[in-house]
């Protein structure tokens, strides 16, 4: 009997091992991971940079320092070659070397957290989607306010006070952003050739989008219209992708409004109001129901997975969720590469209609110095050299001139790509988006079109109350005190909001009522209250009033 029990135990433990092996942690954020592992506060190294006067001083460069630069993504093939070329120059200029280390795209959130806990890197890529704010306030990075003055005044000047201020966490600067203003404005990508063919309006408003889709449906009933799933709607703003189109109607501070069905207009960010419990919401849901009944998306849209290649292959004629100018450029290329020369893709940013348009936030691509860095001063000096020294910047961004790339008429050309081989060092091959220098960034052939779009957006953005300022993306929510309610709200969203927005309900009014009461049960009020408090404090801190 004993033996049987033992063998059963063995079998059970085997199954348990298998199960735990399959569990995926990728959804967790870096900070969550740290917390789950019981690392509340990141250990701060004993050694701190010695106190210095606030004047620019010349660093003692007599000792060579070898730094590790941690970046996201996969390494290019010619990593070592380019690194050697960089280090040769870097030794001359700063008596330092860098070793690029890559997170790869597998479990990168976890590994990023590990890297910071282990303090093995010196310079590190930061971004808002890697929880820059939370990490900085838990002491992961070296404070840069004084160092910027003493060690790297050129860097401070190049980046500019405004951008640096956006990187402040609890009043201190912990990161240096890149200096290339990039517009990732959401919008609608559509087929210009079909629009011309059937003489339809440009889909630049809800009515025109509806007319455009209806027109195509009438002229070619077999043509798929919208690819809409729940994939671009995983957060706390929308439940179904088609709801992104509503951005044509509202001039909210960010696309899709604030979290938990709250909203605030761009001109008055701290004036938070309610959307889910308003009459507008009911009207919008009725409109989406009408679209669903007209067959704009499939009846199984809620369980479909997003096929990102369907637009490129002509399976749909518009995409409304998760788009940006760069995806439009990609689509143009994909049409060409796919042999569809007669297809034309065009793009309307929601901001062009609702008047709210702004570039990416400064914390979208930045560099920080990890606490525990061997020599923070030298690290900052190296960062300054890599970002501000044109020769070094070109080397780290594009590789070796003449071997990896060439410049013709001010346009970047990848030599391997043009010879039809796989590139050994592609454009921004080290994934150092944090080292983009707006002044000297070489455009690729496709960037010419992109830059035109950016220029147009910049003009529009200059007219807003906060000219070209991305307000929302600098905010990071701390949901510790209401994480249970938050999880419940998330469930209600996927259970009740998603079918509502996908128009898969028979009676919209009744479904809205049910959704609202379920939200109350889930504890939406607590989430909203805390969220509003934090959001208002954030607006106050940065002067967005």
């Amino acid at each position: 009997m004993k033996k049987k029990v033992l063998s059963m135990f063995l079998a059970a433990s085997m199954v348990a091992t298998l199960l735990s092996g399959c569990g995926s942690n990728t959804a967790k954020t870096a900070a969550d991971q740290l917390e789950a592992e019981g690392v509340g506060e990141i250990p701060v190294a004993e050694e701190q940079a010695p106190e210095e006067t606030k004047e620019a001083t010349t660093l003692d460069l007599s000792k060579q320092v070898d730094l590790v630069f941690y970046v996201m993504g996969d390494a290019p093939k010619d990593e070592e070659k380019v690194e050697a070329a960089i280090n040769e120059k870097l030794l001359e200029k700063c008596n330092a070397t860098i070793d690029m280390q890559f997170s790869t795209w597998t479990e990168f959130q976890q590994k990023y957290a590990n890297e910071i806990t282990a303090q093995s890197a010196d310079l590190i890529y930061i971004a808002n989607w890697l929880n820059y704010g939370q990490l900085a306030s838990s002491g992961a990075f070296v404070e840069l306010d004084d160092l910027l003055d003493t060690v790297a005044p050129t860097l401070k000047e190049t980046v500019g006070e405004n951008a640096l201020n956006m990187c402040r966490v609890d009043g201190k600067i912990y990161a240096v952003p890149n200096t290339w203003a990039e517009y990732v404005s959401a919008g609608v990508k559509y087929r210009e050739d079909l629009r011309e063919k059937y003489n339809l309006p440009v889909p630049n408003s809800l009515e025109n989008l509806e007319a455009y889709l209806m027109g195509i449906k009438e002229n070619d009933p077999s043509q798929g219209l919208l690819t809409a799933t729940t994939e671009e709607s995983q957060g706390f703003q929308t439940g179904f992708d088609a709801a992104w189109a509503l951005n044509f109607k509202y001039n909210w501070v960010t696309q899709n409004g604030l979290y938990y069905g709250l909203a605030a207009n761009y001109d008055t960010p701290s004036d938070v109001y309610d959307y889910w419990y308003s009459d507008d919401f009911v009207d919008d849901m009725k409109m989406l129901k009408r679209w669903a009944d007209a067959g704009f998306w499939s009846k199984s849209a809620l369980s479909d997975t997003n096929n990102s290649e369907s637009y490129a292959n002509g399976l749909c004629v518009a995409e409304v969720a998760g788009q940006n100018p760069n995806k439009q450029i990609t689509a143009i290329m994909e049409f060409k590469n796919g042999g569809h020369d007669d297809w034309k893709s065009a793009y309307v940013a929601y901001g062009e209609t609702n008047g709210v348009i702004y570039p990416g936030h400064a914390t979208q691509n930045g560099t920080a110095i990890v606490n525990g860095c061997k020599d923070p001063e030298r690290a900052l000096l190296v960062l300054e050299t890599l970002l501000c020294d044109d020769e070094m910047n070109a080397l780290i961004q594009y590789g070796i001139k003449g071997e990896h790339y060439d410049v013709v008429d001010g346009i970047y050309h990848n030599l391997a790509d043009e010879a039809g081989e796989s590139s050994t060092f592609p454009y921004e091959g080290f994934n150092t988006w944090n080292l983009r220098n707006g002044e000297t960034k070489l455009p690729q052939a496709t960037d010419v079109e992109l830059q035109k779009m950016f220029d147009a957006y910049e003009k529009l953005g200059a007219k807003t109350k906060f000219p070209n300022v991305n307000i929302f993306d600098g905010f990071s929510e701390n949901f510790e005190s209401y994480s249970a309610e938050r999880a419940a709200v998330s469930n209600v969203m996927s259970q009740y909001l998603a079918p509502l927005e996908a128009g898969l309900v028979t009676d919209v009014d009744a479904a809205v009522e049910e959704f609202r009461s379920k939200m109350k049960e889930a504890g939406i009020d607590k989430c909203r209250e805390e969220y509003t408090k934090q959001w208002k404090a954030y607006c106050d801190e940065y002067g967005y009033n």
Partner: protein
Amino acid sequence: MQNKIKQSAANKTLSAFAYVLLTIGSIICVLPFIVIVSGSFTDNATIITKGYSLLPKNFTTAAYQTIFRSPKDIIQAYKMNFYYTGIGTFLGLMMITLTGYVISRKEFKYRNTVSFLIYFTSIFGGGMIPWYLMYANVLNLKGHTLAIWFPALMSPFLVILMRTFIVGAVPDAITESAKIDGAGHFTIFFKIVLPVLKPGLATVGLFLALGYWNDWYRSSMFSTNSSTWQLQFYLYDLLNATTAMKQMASNVSMKTADLPTESVKLAMAVVATGPVLLFYPFVQRYFVSGITVGAVKG
């Protein structure tokens, strides 16, 4: 037909039922594989517009041509995988067998304490972060190939398996008589115990080998150079890069046009698993008998 025993009706129904169930089961197992192979021979645009099918609709070998244009990476990953599997299985098997033998010996006074220390780790672990810090900061193994095969050399589960197997397969009388004949511990182990352990060695060895062959996690954590990657990580990262970059493209300007297509991904899977599939049925036999021997006799 003199040996034929007449089967009762109930027995016949039972085996008929079992056969049907097994047939369905094996079809379920084989179908996805057929779809993968067929997809790898299908034109990418056809997969996108028409979906997957059992037989390739627009037959093309374009995906394989893409892969074998620069097969260096795959071959390197294969090489590393053989290296890790070989060295890991050999050393692991040695350590596990020796440990299992020692804690199965009654004359070893502290065997219960030692066993407890080993089993304890199977229930209580330090967690991922301490584990990572141990290898990365304390042992300084980050970037070493050692970090990839060393952590998996011993597992409490396999030590338990080995110990129970030794207890069942080697009666005390055998070792005692060897001792009386003047054999030392090493002679007993290598000449007497090891030869009767073959099924146990096969089981544990296969567990280890499969574990090494299929692992990707340690490459993900400790590799700093793609030439040391395990095969599974090479493939897994390829898929992850595609999804991650598509997702990120909504926030950051980056090129997403030359990511691997559906058919290339499927062809990758075929190239990577193909040889293992051929190899698997041959060792499966030992694997199954080994497991039952080890567990039941324990």
